């Protein structure tokens, strides 16, 4: 079964991982801008990072027949630094018409602070002004519930936001319902210990259905499995869900959501093979 990983940080992964993804029938990935493990000293570092996401990674992925898309922003952690964030936002728009950019992301909250909220709102303005899709990072662990609700508040308080153009990611049992009920797309991240296991993600798919639902590996430099979407497919098959149900979550839904961006080309024309 062909699938798309809608959230993975390939910059932090080796070329062997691209090969593993290709062997597992991953046909496209989308890579949001995120925190690299240390705070950057200046905005030029972001400039180079955006070049990396829009030039180097798509070329590296293409060698394995994988389409690479990206999302640009200042991540929620570094958004604590208002002046740095504003410098980056001043030049970010020049990257938006690079061929592989789907939108603004992953923006959100980290420790649910005032500065993070301000920078989130400024990203939201930029996305609206440039008619971009939005990919949302929701906070970790104890901060997730509060932060997700705050993010939903900021999105729902803005009448200009078209909710079908926003993906709320890293959802779990306590945050999935408000995001779906409000009309947003929802992503579940498959991690070994934090976030969702493949089993719990399958439980949530059974409870909430397949509409507007996706799964991703969020593979990065921490404990994560870049081919984790395959583990979800395996779990769903073990539960005897139909191939079309599974395919809806791991392929059709990302295609439907991403197709709202003119940068996206669906990677497969038919079930028989890549277009």
């Amino acid at each position, binding site marked *: 079964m062909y699938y798309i990983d809608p959230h993975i940080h390939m910059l932090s992964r080796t070329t062997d991982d691209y090969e593993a993804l290709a062997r597992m029938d991953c046909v496209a990935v989308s890579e949001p801008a995120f925190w690299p493990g240390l705070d950057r000293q200046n905005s030029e570092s972001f400039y180079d990072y955006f070049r990396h996401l829009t030039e180097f990674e798509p070329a590296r992925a293409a060698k394995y027949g994988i389409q690479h898309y990206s999302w640009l922003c200042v991540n929620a952690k570094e958004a604590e630094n208002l002046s740095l964030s504003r410098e980056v936002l001043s030049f970010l728009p020049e990257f938006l018409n690079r061929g592989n950019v789907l939108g603004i992301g992953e923006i959100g909250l980290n420790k649910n602070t005032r500065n993070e*909220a301000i920078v989130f709102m400024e990203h939201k303005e930029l996305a609206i002004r440039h008619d971009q899709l939005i990919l949302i990072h929701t906070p970790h662990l104890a*901060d997730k519930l509060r932060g997700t609700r705050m993010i939903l508040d900021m999105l729902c308080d803005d009448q*200009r936001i078209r909710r079908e153009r926003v993906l709320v990611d890293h959802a779990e049992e306590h945050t999935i319902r408000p995001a779906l009920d409000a009309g947003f797309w929802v992503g579940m991240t498959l991690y070994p210990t934090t976030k969702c296991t493949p089993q719990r993600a399958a439980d949530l798919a059974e409870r909430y259905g397949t509409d507007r639902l996706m799964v991703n590996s969020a593979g990065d430099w921490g404990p994560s499995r870049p081919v984790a979407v395959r583990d979800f497919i395996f779990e769903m098959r073990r539960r005897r869900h139909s191939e079309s149900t599974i395919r809806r979550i791991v392929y059709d839904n990302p295609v439907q959501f991403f197709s709202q961006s003119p940068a996206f080309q669906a990677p497969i024309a038919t079930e028989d093979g890549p277009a």
Partner: protein
Amino acid sequence: MPALTGPLTAEEVLDREFLEIRAKILEVAAALDRLDRASGSVAADERRRQIDAAIAILHTSDPDRSERVQRQFSLPYLEHWREQFQIDTRRERQA
């Protein structure tokens, strides 16, 4: 959004999961023993209280145990965060 009917029967789920559930409960039991054996005390630690509260949730028979365990380990939502931050989040639709 219509839920998917789980194609497995309860008996099949139990057949498949019994050993896994048993193993996970044993891991929790052993970790609590380990805590008790260790020197010092965490009796006043909020995390220790959270663990007991989460275990208590498992004794109930509501279908939302996992969601309630998640909430147990979560900071509460603050209704008045906008006022607290003095941020106006409302934006009108463009004309």
